């Protein structure tokens, strides 16, 4: 029987640094600049330090449920470095590494997970980046809208959006990539494929051998990258973002990594996945990998490392102090930002909050939550 082949596709995988920090092929130009590599390493280190502190704050009852990005720092840090300031990021909840490069303060992140909306007012409040999106995959559509605005206004800007592997099962993910393809939008989708969605392994999430191939359904390119290799990540991201900026349309980047931690501090991953699997992936750490490379290149040493750790610890502690000293919002904050103006017909509800606030203040209970 003759069938005419009408379309064909392939997915490829990119890596420069192996698990030991040895190069597997010639590095791209940018990676020949020590400053860039050192910047990436420092930022990954700060991300990890802030992250570890957040877990600690939660464990000691000073923060709410928190999703660690342990093991995924290369992806997140590479996104932050590859984006331009004027681009817009629509993050999922494990992109601390990107956010810290985009004007979000460590204490903003603490505040957000500490139950305070001001954490999403990002730094000096001028950011156009989106807040963390909790409903899985929904942010993918926002990014297409942002990219549409850029395109309509003929601005050379790009929207970047990230999500997890589990997120790629949601309808919103697919509606977003389909629109991005149909409208040839300047948007880059980054999937943190950390192999698990809470307790569901990738093999039960989808029959697709790669996440990258999901882009085929939307008619554009998908690429698979070693997500623990910050060089491969940055290279791929920069190309995709610049391609989008030039009108080349969207790219889907599947970043292969592993969730080295519980899903969140409220989770206990030992209930559903074998310790050995985690141990196996511990060897692939994105920081260790770059550390070894830098060491081999004579760009780094123990002393510098100690200094960096101290510097990170200091920054994080300052953020902890700022966080713990944040005054509570007044009770009226729960209504004052809902609409531009609180509806007159609901004035009594605001009055009730004002009164309660006054009572709290009289009792001296208003300042901390």
């Amino acid at each position, binding site marked *: 029987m003759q069938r005419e082949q009408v379309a064909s596709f392939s997915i490829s995988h990119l890596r420069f640094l192996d698990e030991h920090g040895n190069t597997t092929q010639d590095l791209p130009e940018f990676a020949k600049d020590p400053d860039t590599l050192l910047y990436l390493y420092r930022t990954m280190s700060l991300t990890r330090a802030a992250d570890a502190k957040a877990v600690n704050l939660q464990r000691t009852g000073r923060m709410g449920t928190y999703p660690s990005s342990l093991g995924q720092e290369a992806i997140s840090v590479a996104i932050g470095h590859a984006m331009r300031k004027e681009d817009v990021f629509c993050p999922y909840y494990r992109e601390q590494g990107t956010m810290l490069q985009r004007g979000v303060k460590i204490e903003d992140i603490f505040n957000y997970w500490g139950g305070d909306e001001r954490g999403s007012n990002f730094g000096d409040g001028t950011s156009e980046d989106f807040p963390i999106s909790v409903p899985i995959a929904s942010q993918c559509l926002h990014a297409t809208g942002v990219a549409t605005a850029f395109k*309509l206004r003929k601005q050379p800007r790009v929207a970047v959006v990230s999500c997890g592997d589990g997120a790629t099962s949601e309808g919103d993910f697919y509606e977003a990539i389909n629109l991005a393809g149909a409208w040839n939008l300047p948007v880059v989708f980054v999937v943190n494929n950390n192999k698990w969605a809470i307790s569901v392994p990738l093999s039960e999430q989808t029959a697709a051998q790669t996440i990258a191939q999901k882009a085929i359904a939307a008619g554009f390119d998908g690429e698979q990258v070693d997500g623990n290799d910050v060089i491969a990540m940055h290279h791929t991201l920069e190309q995709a973002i610049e391609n989008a900026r030039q009108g080349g349309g969207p790219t889907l980047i599947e970043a292969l990594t592993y969730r080295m931690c519980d899903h969140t501090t409220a989770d206990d991953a030992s209930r559903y996945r074998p310790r050995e699997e985690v141990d196996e992936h511990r060897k692939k750490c994105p920081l260790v990998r770059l550390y070894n490379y830098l060491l081999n290149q004579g760009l780094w040493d123990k002393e510098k490392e100690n200094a960096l750790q101290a510097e990170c610890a200091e920054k994080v502690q300052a953020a902890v102090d700022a966080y713990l000293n944040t005054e509570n919002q007044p009770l009226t904050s729960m209504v004052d930002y809902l609409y531009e103006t609180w509806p*007159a017909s609901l004035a009594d509800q605001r009055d009730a909050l004002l009164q309660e606030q006054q009572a709290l203040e009289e009792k001296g209970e208003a300042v901390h939550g």
Partner: protein
Amino acid sequence: MANNAITLVEAVTQALAYELNADPDTVVLGEDVGVNGGVFRATAGLQQRFGKDRVMDTPLAESMIAGASIGMAAQGLKPIAEIQFMGFIFPAVDQMITHAARMRNRTRGRLTCPMVMRAPFGGGIHAPEHHSESTEALLAHIPGLRVVIPSSPTLAYGLLLAAIRDPDPVIFLEPKRIYRLVKQEVPDNGEALPLDVCFQLREGTDITLVTWGASTHETLKVANTLAKQGVSAEVIDVATIKPLDMNTILQSVEKTGRCVIVHEACRSFGVGAEIAAQIAEKALTSLMAPVKRVTGYDTVMPYFKLEKHYLPSEAQILAGVQEVLEYA
């Protein structure tokens, strides 16, 4: 009737054209809103006039229409999205509830969502299944949204302009049964009407009839009938369902002491419940009779052979009024 009088759906088009022209940040998007001009012709001619960049046909995906609008709105555009029929709004409610309604609050005002989601709604046009929904109550319950329903060409024009200019998300529901029922002269002067207030369609002293959307027409007819019987009915068009302007309604009920609420949606947990509850809370002593709700039944809208028996009829409204008037 003047020669250049227009229908409700034409008033929608006129408002869209006015604002597309006046405000370069506005864009129209949705399924078939472009060259086809929308299945009800609400966007007829707009793509031809304003171009494909301002009037965009989207792929067939309602969550996408909502979610992409949110992204555009955060960038300062003012998307005016069409959902082809209200029966197909449900895939979009997640984005509207979890993001559109919350973006300002969540970011303490850093990002906002000045979008409008338009959808034709309601029964009575002999349409297939899912084409006759009235689920405004669902949206009215969501903090952060506005829900606006015009009942005439004049209100459609003025309220749609207001909705587009509003800095927060507005769901704009168009009663398609009366899309072409009456014509009014609607000067294309770009003047918005106020949101968040009820409109008094008829003054009266004996009973207050509260309604919105297509039901205003039967209700006004009933008020006419009542007038002939010597009963003076005040008719209030709620217009903005959320947030609800109870003051206008309460003032009227305090005057008349009697109230009938008319809506097409099924009764239980409908918009009428909130109105009746607030009347009972805030005007209990003025009430000379229990508030009566004349509504659709608590069932799915039947297919069109029986739909006229589902929709509140003049006879049912009149019977409701009689009951309230006769209450001792």
